[in-house]
């Protein structure tokens, strides 16, 4: 289990706003913070974790929810 610092719901967003919202939220958090992101749809499911990894953040978990959406846990990089 990870202590969640902040939560972001982007289930109503479409690309590229899904990662824009995620990136802005990560910027607002301190290094090492854990962001919980709720995602819906194939494209953000693929793109958001990939973009987060490319920017140096750690993907801690990606879990399917009962309604078919996904819960992504990201740890903000230490830089």
């Amino acid at each position, binding site marked *: 289990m990870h202590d969640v610092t902040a939560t972001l719901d982007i289930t109503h967003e479409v690309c590229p706003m899904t990662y*824009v919202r995620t990136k*802005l939220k990560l910027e607002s958090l301190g290094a090492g913070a854990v962001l919980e992101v709720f995602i819906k749809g194939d494209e953000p499911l693929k793109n958001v974790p990939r973009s987060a990894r490319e920017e140096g953040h750690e993907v801690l978990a990606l879990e399917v929810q009962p309604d078919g959406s996904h819960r992504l846990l990201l740890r903000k990089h230490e830089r």
Partner: protein
Amino acid sequence: MALREDQILRYSRQILLKDVGGRGQEALLEGGARLEGSGPAGLTAAAYLAAGGTPVAASEARLGPAAVGFLISEEDVGQPAAEVLGRVLPEVNPDAVHPQAGGRIAELPAAWNGEAPWVALGGDGTRGAVVFRGSQGCMWCFGETVRTLGSPPTGVLGVALGALGALAFQRLRLGMGPELGGRWLAAPGQVAELELRRCARCQVAR
């Protein structure tokens, strides 16, 4: 400053860039640029900077026939650049309305003073040249280099040079190095390193 919702939507593709993000976009919006020159290179740079969120102030120099293009109409020829750009740039981006203190982007020949970034748009008769300097870059080496260059090209190469100059300005505004450098532009997309001329002090230091 915090980005407004309409700004997050407008600049979303810049925010996505790894080296920009929300903080970088805020920096682009907060700083201004002073434009000297009214050829294709300078006006293209002004449009790119304004579109990216950086307010641009132009000089009082009057626009010549070479200024006519996508920003400037034939009716604007003879009008002060500051007045015309003050009218048309907010149509490109309403955030570009209030020019603030900041850097300078100029078509050569030009005088250089004030706050960095400094971006010079010039050429050697066949190629375009961009020389740039951040606040930590040697202003004497910058001066030695731009002194040897002539006016920027016109036409398509001038437009491409203006876009490259705007990019150099934005990189410096975002704190991205190098603090001093130059690039030749032989044709749109054909970029090569421009070797800087060193001032006497920097020559000794090397």
